[in-house]
């Protein structure tokens, strides 16, 4: 192990060097604060800093080290006079991992190093786990991106916006046309985030695209989606989802809603004419023999837009812990003022409500404009 030892007294450094050699460690010696900061380039595993270092004090060196992402996981031990009250105040503020009393004794130095092995090990595991988690997130994001790349190019009357509660949004929004040009639209909110969500999104999108291109009805598609998720996912993992079928001539819409907030069918005057409530369990919970694929049908004459959202939107909480709520959503839709379209109105109101806070669940909003 490489141990950085910063001390202005040559005698102390000599004593420490003997201890380290006997223990099989390598000493990186520094005689002042500037020297100690430069020595970080040698990537020490453990750092000892005398608080009375010339140029930059040990407290300040420690504070600087702990503020750098690259070095903050290297344990830092301060060598300080323990009867000094101000030293203790500075000690607790600078982020050090331990202290040793002066004057130094070889057996104390030896014991301290052995004791800190455990901390080094914990920090290393933490780093490894973090690295592992980042790799998984990258993989999950790649999978999600590939899924959405499989659909036809953007359809101009479909608006979609999402805000993630973490590294990326785990809500899945996909659409595709049947051979008869009916449009199928799917929004799904998977339990969990990241890789857990991406793993369920794969079979869901496979079934959705294949069956839509095959011309199956949305009832058949949701039954198959439920079966797939029921078979694959453990109890407790499911997908709250809605599947819509817009007629090729946009005269009718069929909707299956299992676990998402009500879809809102809005007229040109911004009045909500229909609320399409969830009457079903989310996908992946019901035993396939008991699954209910019954759909709701609506005429689209007089309907100007359809608003679909995940529960992350209605349950978004502001800094006071207040929920966005279905009522507020209805009020924003009903607002007659302003030129903004419904989609932009909801989006900007949600962002204003959150005041820059990250939502605690993924927020998704899809608006179908039927102008």
């Amino acid at each position: 192990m490489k141990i950085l030892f910063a001390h202005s007294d040559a005698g102390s450094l000599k004593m420490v060097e003997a201890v380290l050699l006997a223990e099989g460690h390598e000493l990186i010696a520094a005689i002042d604060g500037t020297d100690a900061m430069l020595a970080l380039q040698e990537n020490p595993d453990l750092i000892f800093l005398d608080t009375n270092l010339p140029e930059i004090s040990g407290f300040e060196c420690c504070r600087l080290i702990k503020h750098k992402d690259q070095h903050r996981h290297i344990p830092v031990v301060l060598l300080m006079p323990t009867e000094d009250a101000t030293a203790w105040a500075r000690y607790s503020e600078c982020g050090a991992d331990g202290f040793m009393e002066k004057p130094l004794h070889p057996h104390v130095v030896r014991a301290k190093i052995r004791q800190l092995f455990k901390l080094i090990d914990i920090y290393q595991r933490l780093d490894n786990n973090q690295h592992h988690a980042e790799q998984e997130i990258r993989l999950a994001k790649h999978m999600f991106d590939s899924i959405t790349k499989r659909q036809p190019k953007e359809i101009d009357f479909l608006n979609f916006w999402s805000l993630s509660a973490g590294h990326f949004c785990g809500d899945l929004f996909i659409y595709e046309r049947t051979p008869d040009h009916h449009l199928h639209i799917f929004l799904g909110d998977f339990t969990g985030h990241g890789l857990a969500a991406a793993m369920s999104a794969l079979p869901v999108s496979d079934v959705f695209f294949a069956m839509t291109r095959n011309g199956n009805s949305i009832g058949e598609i949701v039954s198959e989606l439920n079966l797939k998720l029921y078979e694959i996912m453990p109890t407790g993992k499911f997908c709250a989802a809605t599947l819509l079928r817009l007629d090729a001539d946009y005269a009718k819409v069929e909707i299956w809603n299992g676990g998402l907030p009500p879809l809102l069918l809005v007229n040109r005057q911004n009045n909500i004419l229909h609320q399409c409530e969830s009457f079903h369990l989310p996908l992946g919970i019901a035993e396939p023999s008991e699954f209910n694929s019954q759909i709701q049908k609506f005429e689209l004459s007089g309907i100007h837009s359809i608003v679909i959202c995940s529960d992350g939107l209605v349950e978004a909480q502001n800094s006071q812990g207040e929920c966005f709520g279905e009522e507020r959503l209805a009020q924003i839709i009903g607002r007659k003022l302003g030129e903004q379209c419904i989609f932009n109105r909801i989006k900007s109101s949600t962002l204003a409500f959150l005041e820059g806070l990250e939502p605690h669940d993924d927020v998704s909003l899809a608006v179908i404009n039927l102008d």
Partner: protein
Amino acid sequence: MNSLTPKKLHINVSAINNTATLHLSGHFSFGAHREFKNAYKIQIDNASISNIVINLADVQYLDSSALGMLLILREHVQSTSKTLTLSRPSTITSRTFDIAGFDQLFSIN
């Protein structure tokens, strides 16, 4: 994680005769996984308990992971001869149950 202070789930267990009640308060989400599991496992393994009640009156927030945990608990209970009841959901949690169709799976009062 957002910048709000982390909200914990508190679980208070009381047993009267053969009914164990897990009184939950606070934030019921993924972070409560282990604590919730430990709390119900004791009751499931306890032969003198025949009814398990999850009191949700003081749950301020419940997400889909929490719904998942309730589904897992339901599965455990179904493998025994015990009963499971979700009791007194607040307005917010009761709306979440409605949307998720949980009234079809659980006895809720």
